[in-house]
C-alpha cells in the first residue's frame, strides 16, 4: 500500500470553527469524508491509486497536485459520478455505492472547474432549476440567502451569458450552496480568473470557512491552499503527503536560518562551525543557509559569532518554507524517481 507520509486524520480546527460547523450541518460527530484505499483506473491508465484520508466536519481540506494527478477524478468519484475501481469511502455519512448515489448527491455539492451555467437563463432561473432538482422548500428564501452569500443579490435578473467569468463563478458557488451541503467540493474554483476575481472567490471561501462549512478544495495554486485550508493533501496519482501546511513544512524541511551579509565570510567554517547549534551550512545568494537544531536558540549564537568575526549582518532570521517549497520538493522527488 502506498500511503501518505502521515495519514492521520486531524479533526483539528485551528480556527475553532469545527464545532460550530458540526451543528450547522447537523452532522455532529464522525467524519464528513472517510476514504480508504480508493483507486480508479480507466483501462490501463491509473487516475489515482490507493488513496486514504479523512476530513472532519467543518474542516477546509486542500487537495493539491499537478495537472493529471487525479484530483478532479477523485472529486467525481466521491460525488458518485464515477465508480471507483477499488476501495471504499463514506461521504457525508453515507457509504459510497452506486445505489446510494442520489442520496449522497442530495447531501453534497460540487462546484466544477467550469461554472456550467445555462447562458440564456437568468441567475434566478438557473438557481430555481437547481432548487427544484434538490426538491428544496422555501425556494425563494434559499436563493436569496445563497445570492447574498456570494454578494450577488442585485444580479438575480441578469442573464448568465452576460456575466463576467468571475461573476459566473460566484453564481456557480451560490448554486452549490443552495442545498446547504454537508460537504462542499470546490474543483479549481479560481482557475482562469483574474487576480481581482480570484481574491473575491478567496474571500467567499474564507467566509464559508468562518461559517463552518466543510470544504474539499482541489487546486494547484499553493498560496490559495495555504491561505484557506486547515489541512492539505498532496496527490500525484498516489497520496504523497497529508497534514497542516506548517506540519508539512516541518516534516520535509529541517529548521534553518537565513543569514544575509554585506560581504561573504573569509572562513565560514571557522565562524559557523564553532556555533554548537549549527549542524551544517551552505552558501546562498548574498549569505548562508544554516541547518540548526533549534532556530530560537541558534539565532543569538550565530549573531554573536558573526559580529565577533567582523561581519556586517544585513538580516538574520528563520527560513520560511512555503507550501510551494513542500510541493516542489515532492514533485522533484517524483521526477527523480521517474528518471531512475
Amino acid at each position, binding site marked *: 500500500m502506498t500511503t501518505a507520509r502521515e495519514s492521520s486524520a486531524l479533526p483539528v480546527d485551528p480556527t475553532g470553527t469545527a464545532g460550530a460547523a458540526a451543528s450547522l450541518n447537523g452532522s455532529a460527530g464522525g467524519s464528513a469524508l472517510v476514504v480508504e484505499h480508493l483507486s480508479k483506473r*480507466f*483501462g490501463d491508465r491509473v487516475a489515482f491509486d490507493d488513496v486514504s484520508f479523512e476530513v472532519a466536519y467543518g474542516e477546509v481540506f486542500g487537495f493539491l497536485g499537478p495537472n493529471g494527478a487525479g484530483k478532479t*477524478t477523485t472529486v*467525481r468519484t466521491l*460525488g458518485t*459520478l*464515477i*465508480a471507483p475501481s477499488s476501495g471504499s469511502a463514506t461521504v457525508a*455519512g*453515507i*457509504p459510497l455505492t452506486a*445505489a*446510494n448515489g*442520489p*442520496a449522497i*448527491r*442530495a447531501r453534497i*455539492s*460540487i462546484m*466544477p472547474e*467550469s*461554472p*456550467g*451555467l*445555462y*447562458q*440564456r*437563463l437568468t441567475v434566478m*432561473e438557473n438557481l*430555481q*432549476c*437547481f*432548487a*427544484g*432538482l*434538490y*426538491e428544496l422548500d422555501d425556494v425563494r428564501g434559499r436563493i436569496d440567502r445563497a445570492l447574498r452569500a456570494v454578494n450577488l443579490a442585485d444580479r438575480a435578473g441578469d442573464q448568465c451569458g452576460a456575466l463576467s467569468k468571475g461573476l459566473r463563478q460566484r453564481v*456557480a458557488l451560490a*448554486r452549490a450552496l443552495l442545498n446547504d451541503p454537508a460537504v462542499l467540493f470546490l474543483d479549481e474554483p479560481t482557475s482562469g480568473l483574474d487576480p481581482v476575481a480570484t481574491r473575491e472567490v478567496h474571500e467567499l471561501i474564507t467566509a464559508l470557512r468562518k461559517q463552518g462549512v466543510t470544504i474539499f478544495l482541489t487546486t494547484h495554486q499553493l498560496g490559495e491552499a495555504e491561505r484557506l485550508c486547515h489541512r492539505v493533501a498532496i496527490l500525484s496519482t498516489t497520496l504523497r503527503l497529508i497534514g497542516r501546511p506548517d506540519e508539512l513544512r516541518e516534516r520535509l524541511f529541517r529548521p534553518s536560518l537565513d543569514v544575509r551579509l554585506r560581504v561573504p565570510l573569509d572562513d565560514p567554517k571557522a565562524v559557523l562551525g564553532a556555533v554548537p547549534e549549527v549542524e551544517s551550512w551552505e552558501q546562498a545568494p548574498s549569505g548562508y543557509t544554516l541547518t540548526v537544531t533549534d532556530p530560537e536558540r541558534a539565532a543569538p549564537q550565530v549573531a554573536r559569532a558573526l559580529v565577533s568575526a567582523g561581519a556586517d549582518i544585513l538580516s538574520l532570521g528563520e527560513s520560511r518554507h512555503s507550501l510551494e517549497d513542500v510541493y516542489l520538493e515532492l514533485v522533484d522527488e517524483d521526477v527523480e524517481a521517474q528518471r531512475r
Partner: protein
Amino acid sequence: MNVRPVSFSWTRVGAIFHKELRDYRRNRFVVVFTMSILPLIFIALPIVQLFTIPADIASSRLDTRIGLSMLYMLLIPAIVPSALAAYSVVGEREQGTLEPLLITPIRSEELLIGKALAALAPTLAVAYAIFGIFLAATALFAHPNVDSAVFSSSHLLIQLLFTPLIAGWSIWVGIAISARSSDIRAAQQLSVFASLPPLVIVALMSMNVIAPSTGLAVGLAAALLAIDGLAWRAVATMFDRERLITGS
C-alpha cells in the same frame, strides 16, 4: 447508517421541463427554424397538393392524394422533436452544463422524462396547430369532395393518434443518439433519419396500401406506445454518467 432511497420525483422532472422550455424560448434557432419555418414548409406542400386535386378524381386516388398530404404533416412530429432531442444531452455536454446537472440527486429516468416532455410539449402544440390550420383551409377553400374525404374519421384518427406517438419515438431515438454522440450536428442528422421508420406504416395506411380501420389504427398506436415505453427504459439503462462525464 440507514440511507433512505431517493425515489422518483416529479418535482425534479418539472425542474428540467421548465428549464428546457425557458431555454427553447430564448434560443433563436429553436424558435425561428424548428418551431416556425420547418412547420410552415410542411403545411405549404399539403395545402398546395390538396387544392390541385381535380373535382372529378376517382375516390381511390382521392384517398391516396389526401393520405399523402396528411403524411407531410406527420413529418412535423417526426422531425421537429428529433432536432430538440438530439441536442438534449450532447448539447449540455458541449455547454459544460451536464456535470453540474448530474451532480444533483436527479436520477437518469427523471432527467430523460423531463427532457422528453420538454421536447414533446412544443411539438404537439405546433403539430396540432398546423393540423388545425390545414383543416380550416380545407373547410374554407377545398372542393366539397376533398373536404368530406379529409374530414373522414380514419384520417383524423390517424393524425390525432399518431402525432404524439411518432413524436415519442422520435424523441427517444434522438435522446439515445444524443447520449452516445460527441457532436451536436452529427447527432441531429442521425436523429432525423432514425425518426422516420414509424412513418412508413402510417404512410401505408394513409395511402390505403394497408386498409385503414379504427381497429388497426388503435392496434398500431398501442404497439407504438409500448415501443415508446420500452425505448424510455432502454435509453435510461444506456445512460452512462461516467462515460458522459469522462468521455471514455
